[in-house]
């Protein structure tokens, strides 16, 4: 990390972290920054838990037959892994942690529109997470995170508490989304027009739309499953005139857009990081904005691509396939724009940039597997195999986790006012990227070979690739532990960063680092858009 010119000795005394040191001051805070930090801590904890579950699964899969656990334990373990990673880590990770911390800073506001509601979202999340986890350890649902009926309505395991927990977490998501929409609409600083907003704010805004529109459907469908279990409502039971596929339609109506809840904010992070570390404006700001909104919108009409093998109508499969291709276009546009942003830049090889490059590559590769699924015919082989597991891990780990790590490193000085050991961070970033490749490329090949997902046991010809994947997973886990180690160390012993250690022209750096409780003593001015590094006269003539 490049040291700033004059290194200050201590953190600025009026920062938000110094505004009350008691536990009570944190539990009752309405400061968006503290709420963001609390979400960061909570999601990191669940990321760790989900990672431990993942390793347990990988160890079981080292050999065919029983390695360390039986079938029931395995089935519970992958459910635990899925539920933890999706609802307790991925969905809140970037929007609730970094979104809360950064959106008001990026738009020159003192807080979000509804600070008390914001605090409530933390408590809803903790309540939901506690109930879900209690259920998981008490009876242990074995349905997978997808809760497909009629299995979920008939299995003897503790599905109800998990449903209830996820239902409550859904409210936390909705509240966060509402808050962001209101904040971006009403609290932008004077002079900060829509087309000058940082791309991260656009990404969080696009995410918020999905959170508000899609999450209620999840709540509804979970309630219906609960009704079916408790009173035998017959909604999904063909013996009573119900339809098991109805569940899949409702579930994916939420859960496909939910993929974009997990990915859109990460795209926002990359848009910021790629500009900051190459000192360049976005190659095409407007294309990124329109494709963000495009993904939010079209993402609602692609859910049926999870059901190509389910026996839905051939016409339906075609329509959903074609819509899915459109979503892929929006993503392709973004990848080209980020890549083009590097052109003629002044590129600093720091950890966030390394993660950004990894992100672009993995998002492209994972996205292309998605394009292959959208051809419909190729999906018939890959559906519900390890190919799908690899595909969504390329997107969720290869893209979202890389972006999460990029965000963590890029904004660490903003949040805590300290820097981290740069060389160590770069090494860990490479380790994480190689670990990722070694984990998930074998899984992709397993899918080609025909290995179905959610298999506690498998025919022996799949073993070699499983061993390779487990080896990669260990490497990945080691890399992540290294990061946890040096970041924890840096929280206390890292060098004081100064206000803008990266020399970034992102709007969030207009405030002090770490910011004071009310962000800006004087509302800053916004003469240009974010990340304008070039002197005005250097402008290229064909500028938009």
């Amino acid at each position, binding site marked *: 990390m490049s040291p700033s010119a004059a290194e200050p000795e201590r953190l600025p005394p009026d920062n938000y972290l110094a505004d009350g040191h008691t536990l009570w001051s944190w539990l009752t805070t309405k400061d968006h920054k503290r709420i963001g930090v609390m979400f960061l801590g909570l999601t990191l904890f669940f990321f760790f838990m989900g990672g431990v579950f993942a390793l347990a699964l990988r160890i079981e899969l080292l050999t065919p037959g029983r390695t360390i656990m039986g079938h029931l334990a395995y089935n519970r373990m992958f459910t635990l892994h899925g539920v933890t990673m999706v609802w307790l880590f991925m969905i809140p990770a970037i929007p609730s942690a970094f979104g809360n911390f950064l959106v008001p800073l990026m738009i020159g506001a003192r807080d979000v529109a509804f600070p008390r509601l914001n605090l409530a979202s933390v408590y809803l999340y903790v309540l939901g997470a506690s109930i879900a986890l209690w259920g998981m350890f008490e009876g242990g649902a074995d349905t997978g995170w997808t809760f497909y009926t009629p299995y979920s309505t008939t299995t003897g395991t503790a599905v109800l508490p998990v449903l209830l927990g996820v239902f409550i977490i859904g409210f936390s998501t909705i509240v966060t989304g509402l808050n962001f929409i209101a904040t971006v609409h009403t609290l932008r600083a004077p002079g900060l027009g829509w087309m000058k907003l940082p791309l991260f704010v656009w990404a969080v805004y696009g995410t918020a739309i999905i959170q508000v529109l899609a999450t209620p459907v999840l709540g509804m469908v979970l309630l219906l499953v609960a009704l079916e279990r408790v009173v035998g409502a017959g909604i999904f039971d063909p013996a009573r005139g119900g339809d*098991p596929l109805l569940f899949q339609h409702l579930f994916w109506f939420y859960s496909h857009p939910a993929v974009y809840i997990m990915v859109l904010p990460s795209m926002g992070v990359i848009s910021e990081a790629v500009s900051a570390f190459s000192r360049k404006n976005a190659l095409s700001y407007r294309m990124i904005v329109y494709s963000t909104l495009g993904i939010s919108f079209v993402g609602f009409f692609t859910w049926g691509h999870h059901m190509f093998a389910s026996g839905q109508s051939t016409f339906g499969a075609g329509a959903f396939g074609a819509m899915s291709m459109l979503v892929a276009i929006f993503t392709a546009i973004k990848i080209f724009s980020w890549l083009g942003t590097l052109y003629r830049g002044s590129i600093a090889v720091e950890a966030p940039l390394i993660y950004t490059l990894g992100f672009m*590559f993995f998002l492209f590769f994972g996205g292309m597997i998605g394009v*292959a699924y*959208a051809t419909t015919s*190729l999906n018939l082989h890959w559906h519900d195999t390890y190919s799908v597991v690899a595909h969504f891990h390329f997107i969720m780990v290869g893209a979202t986790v890389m972006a999460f790590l990029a965000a963590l490193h890029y904004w660490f000085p903003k949040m805590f006012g300290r820097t981290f050991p740069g060389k160590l961070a770069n090494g860990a970033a490479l380790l994480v990227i190689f670990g990722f490749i070694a984990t998930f490329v074998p899984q992709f090949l397993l899918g080609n070979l025909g290995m179905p997902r959610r298999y506690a046991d498998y025919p022996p010809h799949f073993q070699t690739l499983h061993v390779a994947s487990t080896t990669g997973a260990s490497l990945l886990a080691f890399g992540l532990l290294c990061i946890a180690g040096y970041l924890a160390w840096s929280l206390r012993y890292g060098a004081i960063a100064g206000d803008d250690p990266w020399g970034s022209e992102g709007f969030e750096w207009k405030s002090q680092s770490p910011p004071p409780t009310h962000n800006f003593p004087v509302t800053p001015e916004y003469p240009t858009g974010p990340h304008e590094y070039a002197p005005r006269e250097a402008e290229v003539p064909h500028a938009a």
Partner: protein
Amino acid sequence: MNELLRRLFFLPEQGSTFAVKVDHLHYFLFLTTLVVATGIGVTGLTFLVRYHRGTAPTPTPRVVAPPWLEGLFIGVPLSFFLLWFVLGFRQYVWVSSPPRDALDVYVTGKQWMWKFTYPGGPSAIDTLVVPAGRPVRLLITSRDVIHSFYVPDFRMKRDAVPGRYTEIWFEAPKPGRHLVLCAEYCGLDHSQMRGEVVVLKPADFEAWRAAQLGGVPVAGLPGAATKPQPESMAVRGEHVAAAQGCLQCHTITGAPHIGPTWLGLYGRREPLEGGGVVLADEAYLTESMMDPLAKVVAGYVPVMPGYHGLLSAEDAGALVEFIKSLQPTRPGVTAAQEPAYVPIRR
């Protein structure tokens, strides 16, 4: 070339006409992906080296994509995506529209086995016997939760959904054996819900079917003695097993179910619930029929009813002989010769 790419992408054998079609689209799409991915990687790394920042940041120009470049970013991927979609969806429509002359087979998924029923003919557990070179339409349903009938060698799967029939068809060009897997998570033994498609030469298939319709089991299979044999004890035992419902809990395929599998049971040393080991000989097998709770095999719930007074001595003996005949595959024995089906008499 086909063979080389198939191995490069770790694809299994191409067991159906659909597999060949769909693999070509696979190659087209993934070779393009690899080329573009390499392009992105090389471009990214080139920029990284070329525009690497020294000690101090250098001034950078303001570059904004001109509209033609934006058009290119949208147009090029869109054309590729639409081309692939058109190619792929044609195949999807093709595989979803069975030809009229297809042979129908009903497929029923059940936790955790596959049952194949031929209209007006025999039914089989976990082994689907089909003729080569003829389209076969599968009418798939489930008796409990959702399963998915998946044959990797055929590159296709279709969900078995309770309360409705889904359909798919395939044509296997040459005789062979192909693994059947359940691809939709269906509970405890999801990963054990495996079976096999046995593709026979058309003549062998007809012989097999005729034998099935005549109720001639095991020995009447192609490759074995072709002459129907008089009913042996083992054959009688098989009928008894079907009539008494033994096979609802005991499989003959090697898969553990509610009770231990019968495949290879005879002569095996079984660990007992509460410790100890028992040799599964004639005595133990008979005792387990009459007083099942006396010695329960470890890992199974003691739910079997006693058959004392319900089974005649001859029938019990026939059952023991039937179990003795169920030995796992030995090298050189084809699947079709294994007793892997349950003929049902009308």
